């Protein structure tokens, strides 16, 4: 399968199954589109007819182009067949029972009251609660015990607002550091915070211990303060931005992400990206809101048209800034064409419920943070392990080939089938797809690959 598109002045051809990316001239672009379904004479005749008025394109050029396309096919870089389906479940089967990442819900409570919060203001449709050290310690022990030969273990301090339980976060990190060497492990911690409680102590700790920090900022003040308000209804922008700036400055090159959400209120989210840049941040992420179709913040079809344009303009902005020596990172456009994941990873789907689980303040295990609060998805607990094996099996069998809609999608090896939670909320099945998300994802991949090509051509890579 191939995918062809034109963007940023480039004619781009993706060979889905080999992972090859080609930037081609217009003759090759047209020729490749008809190559597989026609014989040589038909292809060459069609190209001669199409380019008959072009003095710069000779018959010899067209024949030469045909040979180049043919050579790529012979070398497996064009029209490579999909032979991966038998491997679809092998990675998960090989690592069955191995857990390598936990999302610790250290605080089911929040000091903000954001209307669009998927976690119902941190409570996950349940009671407010914070995780005790004992529960957190049991979670870390569970992770180490079930991590097999896996060395790097990921732990995300999540909420609600995790800094509302900062002392336990610190104690858990200290505990993890005290046991990692003896077990041959390396903990990588992430903190996701709304910023309200950031102070010098948090900054020092985060910069010392957190591999990554995710900082929630929606961009422009009026956009941010529309949803991200405290319980008195006051916007949080003016309180958090100086804290974020101080944290990022002190981070000294370690990873962080300014992470925003765009909604029906700001499909023109590039203005929010620009605002983040103006504030001095350069590792950025803006995500489309995920909510019920009738929700006031949901993106409409008209919004989606705007968002698609914004993605293209974002790609242009990234290139402009790179040329000017002021590059920035947009998380969804990060793509490592040379060193990305192997095919096993690409087809195995999201690791939720198998290698990745969420832990509630009470120690219950769920497939991921998005399922917390929906009792039927409870997998077990950090004390008893996974007891709902039928549910875990459902997640283990989730992969690219388990989703019929993915079979004809050119982006399937870039997304691996997408988010199980989004699929469930959209269709009632974790093996469904979230179509709106797919449409935006495909656009992002087109833009991301174009940016990579442009950087190579312009010597910016």
């Amino acid at each position, binding site marked *: 399968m191939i995918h062809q598109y034109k963007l940023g002045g480039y004619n781009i051809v993706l060979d889905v199954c080999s992972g090859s990316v080609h930037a081609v001239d217009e003759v090759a672009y047209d020729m490749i589109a008809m190559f597989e379904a026609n014989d040589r004479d038909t292809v060459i005749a069609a190209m001669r007819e199409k380019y008959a008025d072009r003095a710069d394109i000779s018959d010899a*050029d067209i024949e030469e182009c045909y040979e180049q396309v043919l050579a790529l096919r012979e070398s497996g870089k064009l029209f490579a067949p999909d032979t991966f389906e038998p491997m679809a479940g092998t990675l998960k089967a*090989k690592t069955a029972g191995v857990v390598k990442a936990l999302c610790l819900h250290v605080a089911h409570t929040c000091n903000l009251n954001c209307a669009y919060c998927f976690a119902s203001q941190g409570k996950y449709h349940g009671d407010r609660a914070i995780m005790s050290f004992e529960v957190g310690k049991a979670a870390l022990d569970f992770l180490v015990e079930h991590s097999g030969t896996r060395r790097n273990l990921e732990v995300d301090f999540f909420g609600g607002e995790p800094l509302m339980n900062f002392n336990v976060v610190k104690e858990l990190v200290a505990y993890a550091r005290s046991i990692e060497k003896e077990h041959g492990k390396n903990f990588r911690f992430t903190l996701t915070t709304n910023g309200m409680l950031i102070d010098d102590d948090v900054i020092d700790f985060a910069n010392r211990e957190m591999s990554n920090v995710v900082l929630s900022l929606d961009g422009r003040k009026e956009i941010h303060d529309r949803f991200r308000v405290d319980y008195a209804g006051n916007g949080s922008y003016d309180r958090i931005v100086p804290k974020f700036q101080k944290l990022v400055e002190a981070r000294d090159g370690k990873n962080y992400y300014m992470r925003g959400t765009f909604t029906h209120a700001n499909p023109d989210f590039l203005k929010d990206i620009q605002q983040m840049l103006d504030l001095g941040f350069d590792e950025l992420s803006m995500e489309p809101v995920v909510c019920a179709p009738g929700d006031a913040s949901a993106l409409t079809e008209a919004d989606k048209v705007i968002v698609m344009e914004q993605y293209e303009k974002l790609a242009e902005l990234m290139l402009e800034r790179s040329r000017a020596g002021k590059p920035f990172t947009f998380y969804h456009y990060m793509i490592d*064409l040379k060193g990305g994941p*192997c095919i096993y990873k690409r087809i195995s789907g999201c690791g939720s419920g198998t290698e990745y689980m969420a832990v509630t303040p009470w120690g219950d295990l769920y497939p991921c943070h998005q399922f917390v609060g929906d009792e039927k998805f409870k997998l077990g607990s950090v004390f008893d392990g996974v007891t709902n094996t039928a549910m875990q099996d459902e997640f283990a069998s989730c992969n690219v080939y388990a989703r019929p809609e993915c079979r004809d999608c050119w982006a399937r090896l870039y*997304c691996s089938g997408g988010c199980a939670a*989004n699929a469930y909320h959209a269709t009632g099945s974790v093996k469904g797809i979230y179509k709106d998300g797919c449409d935006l994802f495909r656009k992002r991949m087109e833009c991301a690959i174009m940016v990579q090509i442009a950087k190579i051509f312009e010597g910016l890579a």
Partner: protein
Amino acid sequence: MEHIKTIETRNLCDSAKNGGCGECQTSCQSACKTSCGIANQQCENTKESK
């Protein structure tokens, strides 16, 4: 005349032969967690010649 410029990429078919160590970051495409999908991950297999 070069009609096609092929960008250097990882050959996915070849990765079937020696990939699958499972050491890579867990993918999560949930919007609330800065969607770490497959595309923006790096391979962490230090033993494999990619």
